[in-house]
C-alpha cells in the first residue's frame, strides 16, 4: 500500500495514474501504482535499480509501446484524457509529453537539424525564419545558445556529453511539450555538467511539469518539489520532497534514504 502524505498543497494534477500494472511477458514490473503528477512542479522518482521507476516513467508517454513484450494495465490520464485510449494518437501524445533519455542521444545531424527535427515533423514552422526562431528559443531555454550559436551546422554528436544532453533537452522543448520526462538525465555526465542540467531543470520547472528519474538522492532533494519512492515495482511513499527526506513515514523509505540498501 502506498503512503501518500496528506499535507500536499491542492495543485492541479497534470497527469494522473490510477492502479497501473505493467508486465514484461509474464513478469510483473509495476504493481498497482497510483500517482498524481502536479502541474508546474518537478516530481522525482527514486528507488533502487530495477524497482520499476524507469518503466513507470516510460508509461507516461507510451514509450513502452516500442517493447513488444510489454503490457500496460490501468488508467493514465493527461488533462483528464486517458492516454491508453485506442483512439488517441500516440504521435500527438508524445508531442505533448516529451522525453530525455539516460544517455544523450543526439541524432547524427547538425545542431540546428537536431532542434528543427521535431518542429518540422509536427509542422510548427511555416518558413525558415520561424524555424530559426524556434531553434534559437529552444537553445536559449536549454542554456546552450551562447555555446553553440556560431556552430549550428556542426554535428550534434561532436558536442561534449553535457552539451549533448542539453541539446536533447532543447530538442524536447522545441516541440513545445506540456510534460517533460527525464530518465536519469545526468547519470552519464560529470559533476559540472550535472550541475548545469540541474540548474536548467530548476529554470524549466515553472513552465512545464517535469518528472525525473534519478539514482542520486541529493539530486532529487536539490531539484524536485515532490518525491515518489519506488521499491520492487510498488510505489512505497509519495509526498513533498522535504517531507520524504526529513520525515519519511515508511521504514523502507527511511532505510533507502539513509543508505541502508539500494
Amino acid at each position, binding site marked *: 500500500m502506498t503512503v501518500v502524505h496528506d499535507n500536499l498543497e491542492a495543485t492541479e494534477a497534470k497527469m494522473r495514474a490510477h492502479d497501473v500494472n505493467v508486465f514484461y511477458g509474464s513478469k510483473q514490473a509495476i504493481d498497482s501504482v497510483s500517482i498524481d503528477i502536479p502541474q508546474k512542479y518537478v516530481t522525482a522518482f527514486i528507488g533502487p535499480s530495477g524497482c520499476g521507476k524507469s518503466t513507470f516513467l516510460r508509461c507516461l508517454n507510451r514509450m513502452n509501446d516500442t517493447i513488444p513484450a510489454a503490457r500496460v494495465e490501468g488508467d493514465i490520464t493527461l488533462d483528464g484524457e486517458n492516454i491508453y485510449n485506442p483512439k488517441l494518437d500516440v*504521435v500527438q501524445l508524445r*508531442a505533448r509529453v516529451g*522525453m530525455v533519455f539516460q544517455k544523450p542521444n543526439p*541524432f*547524427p545531424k547538425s545542431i540546428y537539424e537536431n532542434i528543427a527535427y*521535431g518542429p518540422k515533423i509536427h509542422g510548427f514552422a511555416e518558413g525558415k525564419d520561424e524555424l530559426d526562431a524556434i531553434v534559437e528559443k529552444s537553445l536559449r531555454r536549454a542554456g546552450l545558445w551562447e555555446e553553440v550559436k556560431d556552430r549550428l551546422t556542426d554535428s550534434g554528436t561532436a558536442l561534449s556529453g553535457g552539451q549533448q544532453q542539453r541539446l536533447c533537452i532543447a530538442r524536447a522543448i522545441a516541440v513545445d511539450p506540456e510534460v517533460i520526462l527525464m530518465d536519469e538525465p545526468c547519470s552519464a555526465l560529470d559533476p559540472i555538467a550535472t550541475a548545469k542540467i540541474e540548474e536548467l531543470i530548476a529554470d524549466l520547472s515553472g513552465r512545464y511539469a517535469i518528472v525525473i528519474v534519478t539514482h542520486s538522492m541529493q539530486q532529487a532533494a536539490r531539484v524536485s518539489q515532490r518525491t515518489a519512492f519506488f521499491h520492487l515495482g510498488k510505489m512505497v511513499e509519495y509526498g513533498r520532497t522535504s517531507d520524504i527526506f526529513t520525515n519519511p513515514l515508511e521504514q523502507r523509505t527511511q532505510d533507502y534514504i539513509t543508505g541502508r540498501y539500494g
Partner: protein
Amino acid sequence: MSPSILLLLALALGLAGWLAARARAWTFKRAQPGVRLAALPSYHGWYVALWIVIPAVLFALVWSILSPNLVLQSVLASPAAADLPTFGLQRQTMLAEARNVALGNSPAVFNPAAADLVEPFRSALNFYSWIGLAATLVIAFLGGAWSFLRLRPDFTARTRVEKMVMTILLLASLVAILTTIGIVASLVFETVRFFGMVSPIDFLFGTQWNPDPMSNPLNPQGDRYGAIPLFWGTIFIGAIIAMIVAIPLGLMSAIYLTQYADPRVRAWVKPALEVLAGVPTVVYGYFAALTIAPGIRDIAVSLGVSNASSESALAAGLVMGVMIIPFVSSMADDSIAAVPGAMRDGSLAMGATSSETIRKVMIPAALPGIVAGVMLAVSRAIGETMIVVMAASTAANLSANPLDSMTTVTVQIVAMLTGEGSFDHPATLSAFALGFVLFLVTLGLNFIALRVVKRFREAYE
C-alpha cells in the same frame, strides 16, 4: 614414394617426438620436485614436434619440385636416350609416354621407340624416390635430435612454440596477398604485350569492338579493339539495370526486416533471402536465358517492338539485380540494425511516426553502410560473367536501348580466351587488357566501399 605417404610419415615422426619430449620434460619435473619448469611439458612436446614436421615437410615439398627434373636428367644420360629426336613435340611425347608407363599410369607405350625408355625411367624414379625418403627421414631426425637436446628445465618452450605458430599464421596470411600480387603481375605482363600491338588510345577510346582472331597478328588492326561498347555494356547491365532492381528491393526488404517484421517472420524471411545469395550464378544464367529473356521479347513484341532481340541487356540486368538483392539487403540490414536504439527512441519520443523515424533518422544514420553495400554489390555485378554469357550476347552494341543485345567485359574475356586465335595474337591478349581494366575498376570500388565502412564504424564509438 608418394607425397601423401611422406606427409603421414613426417606426422608420425612428429607424434613420436611430441611424446618423447613431453616424457623428457616430466623427468625434469620428477628429478627436481621443487623446481618449476619454464613451460608445461606439452609445450616441450610441441616444440620438438614442430621441429620434426616443418623442416621435413618443407624438404618434401622442395623435393617434389626438384625430383622430376633429376629423374629426367638421369634418363637422358642413359644409353637408351641416345637415339631420341633432339627436340620438338615427338621427343616430349615419347618421354611423357615412357614416364607414364614407368609410373604405372598407362599400360603400354603407343610409340614403340619409347619402350626402351621405360626401364631407365623406372629405375630413375625408384632411385630418386628412395633418396627423397631417406633425406626426409634424416632431416626429420636431425630436427628432432637438435631440438630434443635443447630441452632443459628452464627452457622457454612455450614462448618459442608461440613464435613458431605466429610465423605460420603470418605465412598463411601472406599466401592470399602474394596470390593477389601474382595475379596482378601476370595481368600486367600480358597487358603490356597487348598494348605493344594495339595502342591504349584505340583500346580505351575506340567505339568499335570486333577483333578478328584469324587476322595477321603483325597487322593488329587497332581500330577493331575499341573497348568502349564493352565497358558501356558492363555499366549498363551491371551498374544501371541491375542496381535499379537491387537497390530499392534490397533497401525495402532491409527496412521491413529490421523495423516492421515480427521476429517470427524475420526468422524465416532473412535466411530465405540469404539462400538467394547461395544460388550458383550459372543457375541464374539458365533462368535469365530460358525464362526471362524470351518473356521480355514476347512482351516487347506484343507492345509493338518488332525487332526485339531474344538476348537483351534487360534480361541479364534484371536477373543480375535479383542476384545481388541479398548483398544490398544484408549490408543495409546490418547497418540499420547497428544504429543505436537510442536514436530510434529519441525520434519516437518526440512524436515522430515509425516511417518518419526510419526516413529521417535511421536511414541517414545508416547511409554509409548502405552505400558501402551498394558499392560491393556493383563491383560484384560488373565482375559477374555467367548470367551475361547466357542471357546477353557477344555482339558489342553501343546502345541505350535495354532491349538491344549487348555484351560485357567479362563475356568478351571468355570469348577471346576460348576463341580460335593463337595465344600471342592481339585478339587473345586483349582479354588480359580487359581483365586488367576490370580489376582496377572493381579494386577501386572495393577500396572506396571499405573506406566508407570504416568511417561508418567510427561514427558511434
